[in-house]
Each structure stands twice: as structure tokens, then as C-alpha cells.
């Protein structure tokens, strides 16, 4: 069965510091991985995706994610955090066409000034 784990419920970083939000997955076959962000009282916004190719994927708002097949991980990163990055982040996976996304439980990112 497919699954996604986000081991940290909350990540706290200071503005200007690098941030990492962790995600590991379990799927049969090749994974297609996504990161979404949810701001308070808003829907989910797409950040980035890994399909194939380079393991380092660049997305919106300066975020990037590194796909590591051996560790089955897809950690979200940003070199310098902003207070406005504070939000709820979801990692998601799908492994076949016509499939819904399987989401992790989410990680709350809090960036302090």
C-alpha cells in the first residue's frame, strides 16, 4: 500500500536560516511526488513535483526538493526562510494514472523574525 510519512508535526526556524521539511514515502513502482502548501483558511497550493530526471527539483517561492530513491525521501528545502513561509506543508505521492494523491499528515512550518 502507498503511504507518505512526514515525521515532524512542526518545524521552527528563524528567518534567514535554511529550512528542511522531511517526507518519506512507500509505493510500488516509480513514485510521482508532490509538495503542497496551505495557508490559513486557504486551499492547497502546488509548490513542486518530481516526475523523473534531476533529483533536485525547483519550485515556487524559492522552494526546492531533493528526491532520494535509496532513502525513499523527498525533503522540501529552502536556503533562506521568510516569515511569510509560515504555513502547513503537505507531501503527496501517486504511483499510477487515475489515482488520487496520498498525502502525509502535514508539517506546520513556523518562521520567526
Amino acid at each position, binding site marked *: 500500500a502507498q503511504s507518505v510519512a512526514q515525521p515532524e508535526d512542526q518545524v521552527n526556524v528563524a528567518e534567514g536560516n535554511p529550512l528542511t521539511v522531511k517526507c518519506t514515502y512507500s509505493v510500488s513502482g516509480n513514485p510521482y511526488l508532490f509538495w503542497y502548501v496551505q495557508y490559513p483558511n486557504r*486551499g492547497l*497550493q502546488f509548490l513542486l513535483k518530481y516526475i523523473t530526471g534531476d533529483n533536485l527539483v525547483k519550485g515556487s517561492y524559492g522552494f526546492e526538493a531533493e528526491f532520494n530513491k535509496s532513502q525513499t525521501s523527498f525533503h522540501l528545502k529552502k536556503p533562506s526562510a521568510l516569515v511569510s513561509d509560515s504555513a502547513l506543508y503537505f507531501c*503527496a505521492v501517486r504511483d499510477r*494514472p*487515475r489515482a488520487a*494523491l*496520498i*498525502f502525509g*499528515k502535514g508539517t506546520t512550518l513556523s518562521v520567526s523574525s
Partner: protein
Amino acid sequence: GAGVSQSPSNKVTEKGKDVELRCDPISGHTALYWYRQSLGQGLEFLIYFQGNSAPDKSGLPSDRFSAERTGGSVSTLTIQRTQQEDSAVYLCASTELAGRSNEQFFGPGTRLTVL
């Protein structure tokens, strides 16, 4: 262009009543998904529509839940005889193709509160 829209944004109902939640996907998107976001459960898949194919209902939690999609566009999620555990944010998403690589675009959600 316009994104995915959902209505109402908030719905408060009494236990035992029926509710209908509406989703307008992005024009031209052939695939439509419903998810539920509740405290402690994260985001759960409910149902998926792709064109004229039979919907994938594998995520519906009980037979009180149903959904339809008329004309390949607007979708309505119906919950009959609502229970307090149905309280959640119901999110709709659409995508151009139900391929593996295409991201889903989400609406703002409907917050359902069952008293």
C-alpha cells in the same frame, strides 16, 4: 484564469440533516477529486471522476456519502444524515489529465460543522 471554486465556504448543520457541497472545476479539466481534511486524519481521498468513466468511489467512508458530476463539469458531494464525525473541510481538486505527472489544483474548501 479562474481557479477551482467551491460553495458554500462554510456550512453549519444539525446532526441528521442532509448537506450538499458544490465544486466548480477549472474549465477544461477532465478529472475531479474530492478530499476531506479533518483534525488528526490529514487529507483523505473520497471520490474521483474522470471524463465519462465510472467514478472511483473507493475513498467514501460510508453509504451516506455520494457524489455526482453533471455534464463533465460541476460536481456535488452529498452527505445524508450527517454525523458529528463528518465535521471537516471538504476540498475539491481538478486536473487537466489524470496522468501521473499532472498536479491537482485545489479549491478553497467547504468547512462543514455538524452540531
